[in-house]
């Protein structure tokens, strides 16, 4: 489906009939079925991908088949209802969060207008509270006394195919960003509810390809992009060569090298496509300059983890490669690149799932001697923490004027902000690598940051309008600083963002670029024995790397 023109969509989000803009639907939400049509759903997972995942030890992905959400018959297993209810029962027993969140919501509505999907679509079921009610209504019906006694009057309803379809629609219109959780008086995190819904749907073979294909790639080849070892190496080698052309410095990097001090893992998207490539060049330049004894891995060549968007089992399985590879190579600790959901997994899940990492050492910067006690157990440090520490101790020389072609603002990715608390390290770095940068309005940054609109594996083209709508709150805040301060670059520490925000900016704010923070670090970095290439700046004057690593030479 062609993406709506900017003018059309701009009108539609404000004037279209929606609860966000004032129109109250006449029908109760329980009476409003989910209707699928081309453009409002992500394509279902390909049969062979589901089969592959199902064949892997420890995973269950039943009911592989060819199906489509816009057809009436979803080809569910005979006893799908029983499977779902048993699955729910099992999860209630496994997750206290689920039970508490099912029981405690008072429908105060504090979360209602906090969700970017609601703001952009106005669909009442995109209010976090209603998204959760989609499941809660079933929970009431089958697991609570009140629901059993009073049924619909108590907000209960029976599990039907219609409900299942609704689950599919709205659990894939939530990016598990946790913004709702910040505002809820009980911390109810609709992301948790969405995770449960997605897990339940997989039990009956309902999932989307844009998540399961990268996940199966990651399992087999080590990364979401499906890059095989030689290709992965080639890609990094190309970047290193480009970097040498740009800076005149030969880059020494290695792959799968035993005995390195550090294993470096970043999302494979960084070595695959613009603008992530420049971020990867930033890593290469930084590590070269400080002489870090590190290695890339082709086996653990993915920082991201689409298992987080699928099921806790798949998340664990994919994540387990990191420690397995660190152990095999005998490194001391791991440094992780810029990525949002990757860091949620590392920060909140990895050690629990795949630890203890007692074969590693507490990370200690070889240059500054700083011991990263905040990572004492996982033994994994965020590149921004690592870099900020280098800057603090004056271990790298930075020339912010080398970034004078950009005036960035900074986008807090959902997970580092709300599931980790990584907010000021990137800002500290920005302070030192660019001449000037500006913040977006306060209700749109830090813990209140707005999602790019395409996280959790929704970064797929067939739902472009939905993504542009969901990304509107973020884009709008960027527009504010573009209009006010002439911002021309949206910086971030997330690989998904680098892809999704690029589409978002191209649509809502053409002319505004997107970059990873490490790209700006790399640009500003003064390297030993450098001989920087010349290029032409906007005025046509020949200068050294007028556009940093993006300079065409």
């Amino acid at each position, binding site marked *: 489906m062609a993406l709506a023109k900017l003018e059309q969509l701009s009108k539609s989000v*404000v004037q279209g009939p929606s*609860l966000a803009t004032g129109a109250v639907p006449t029908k109760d*939400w329980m009476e409003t079925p989910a209707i699928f049509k081309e453009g409002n759903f992500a394509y279902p997972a390909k049969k062979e991908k589901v089969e592959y995942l199902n064949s892997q*030890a*420890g995973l269950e992905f039943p009911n592989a088949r060819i199906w489509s959400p816009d057809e009436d018959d979803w080809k569910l297993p005979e006893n799908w209802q029983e499977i779902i209810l048993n699955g729910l029962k099992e999860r209630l027993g*496994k997750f*206290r*969060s689920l*039970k508490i*969140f099912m*029981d405690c*919501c*008072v*429908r*105060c*509505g504090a979360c209602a*207008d906090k969700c970017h999907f609601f*703001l952009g679509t106005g669909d009442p079921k995109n*209010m976090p*509270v209603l998204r959760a*009610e989609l499941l809660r209504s079933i929970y009431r019906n089958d697991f*609570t006394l009140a629901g059993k006694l*009073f049924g619909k009057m108590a*907000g209960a309803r029976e599990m039907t195919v219609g409900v299942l379809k609704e689950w599919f629609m709205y659990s894939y219109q939530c990016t598990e960003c946790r913004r709702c*959780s*910040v*505002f809820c*008086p*009980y*911390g*109810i995190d609709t992301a*948790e509810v969405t995770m449960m819904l997605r897990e339940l749907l997989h039990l009956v073979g309902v999932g989307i390809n844009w998540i399961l294909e990268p996940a199966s790639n990651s399992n*087999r080849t080590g990364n979401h992009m499906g890059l*095989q070892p*030689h290709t992965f190496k080639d890609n990094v080698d190309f970047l290193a060569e480009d970097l040498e052309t740009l800076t005149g410095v030969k880059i020494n990097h290695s792959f*799968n090298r035993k005995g390195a001090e550090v294993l470096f893992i970043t999302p494979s998207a960084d070595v695959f496509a613009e603008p992530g490539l420049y971020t990867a060049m930033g890593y290469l330049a930084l590590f070269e300059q400080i002489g870090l004894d590190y290695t890339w891995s082709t086996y653990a060549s993915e920082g991201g983890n689409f298992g987080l968007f699928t099921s*806790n089992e798949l998340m664990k*399985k994919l*994540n387990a*490669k990191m420690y*397995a590879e660190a152990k095999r190579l005998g490194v001391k600790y791991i440094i992780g690149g810029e990525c949002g959901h990757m860091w949620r997994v*590392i*920060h909140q*899940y990895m*050690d629990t*799932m795949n630890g*203890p990492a007692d074969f590693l050492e507490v990370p200690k910067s070889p240059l500054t001697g700083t011991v990263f006690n*905040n990572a*004492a157990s996982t033994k994994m440090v965020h590149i921004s*923490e690592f870099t900020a520490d280098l800057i*603090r101790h004056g271990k790298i020389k930075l020339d912010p004027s080398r970034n004078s072609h950009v005036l960035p603002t900074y986008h807090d990715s959902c997970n580092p902000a709300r*599931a980790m*608390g*990584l*907010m*000021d390290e990137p800002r500290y770095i920005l302070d030192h690598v660019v001449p000037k940068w500006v913040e977006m309005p306060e*209700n749109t940054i830090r*813990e209140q940051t707005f999602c790019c609109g395409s996280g959790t594996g929704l970064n797929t083209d067939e739902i472009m309008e939905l993504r542009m709508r969901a990304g*509107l709150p973020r884009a*709008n805040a960027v527009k504010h600083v573009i209009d006010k301060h002439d911002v021309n670059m949206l910086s971030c520490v997330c690989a998904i963002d680098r892809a999704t925000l690029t589409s978002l900016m191209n649509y809502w704010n053409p002319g505004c670029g997107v970059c990873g923070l490490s790209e700006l670090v790399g640009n500003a970095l003064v390297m030993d024995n450098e001989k920087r290439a010349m290029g032409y700046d906007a005025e046509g004057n020949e200068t050294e790397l007028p556009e940093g690593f993006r300079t065409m030479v």
Partner: protein
Amino acid sequence: MKYTFSFLAVIALVLIAWLGSQIPGMQYLFGVAIPYLAIMIFLGGFVYRVVQWAKSPVPFSIPTTCGQGASLDFIKQDKLDCPTKTSEVVARMFLEIVTFRSLFRNTKSELHEGPKITYESSKWLWLFALIFHYSFLVVVIRHMRLFLNPVPAWLEFLDFLDAGAALQVGAPLLYATDLALVLGVVLLFGRRLVNRQVRYISLANDYFPLFLIFGIATTGILMRYFLRTNIDIISIKELLVGLVTFSPVFAAKIGSIFYIHLFLVSTLLIYFPFSKLMHLGGVFMSPTRNMANNSRAKRHINPWNDPTIKPHSYAGYEDEFREFMVDAGIPVEKELPPQKDE
């Protein structure tokens, strides 16, 4: 309308108590049996629910971080919103529970032509909730004077403050919290009707407790300020003190309004553990708020972690791609087998 049903339900409860208590002999049911039952269900149900929650483990450390975490020594940690120590978590929880801090953050967003989205602080819900919960709390505490003989001094003092006794003459003294409670209920109900989003999500079981508490408050106020002649304070106190000492003495001359009040309270107690009112207990146990953000420093244990889930092995990976790896000069564990003729 969803609130009609809830409203009618509360009216029905009032009628049941009113008519019921007039039937000779039924006073015992309404004055003793039902209150005892209600207390038992409330306590038992509350404990049961909390135990049920506690039975499910917290497999992962999932605090919602709302500020800078503890990392490098020159980066200032937001100890309240991103706690790492237990004391900091306690402080976060305390402020959440006592001052409704998350609601204090609330914003209202609006879409304008452009499109342009604006966000402005919106503290109404926070204010209404504070008025409601705190006046309810004080009213409940104040009621202890009816159960205790003699009334402890601190309770007298609370009473004194609540009534602003120094400022009032004549009896009965008007309690500020009586008014505030009714006001709180009315504001919360009004908000449910006026705020289009909240109106759309509200269920019958969101209106019911509001009506019920409204009924409780108004019957209480009627009893105290308007129908006082009907009510024999001494008999009520005798009955209530008797109830808590498990030796109910029965005074027959108490007016119906008291039974209605007591019956509504009993209903609330019975309803409580089976409803969203359990947020009173849940707020203490929500993993996104009551956990420390230290999961990288200290390993969190998941009791059902499945050790059999292993990564796709390196050996399997190398077996599949060994040739390419060797070709590309990537180190391998096992060299390629010597060339064989096909």
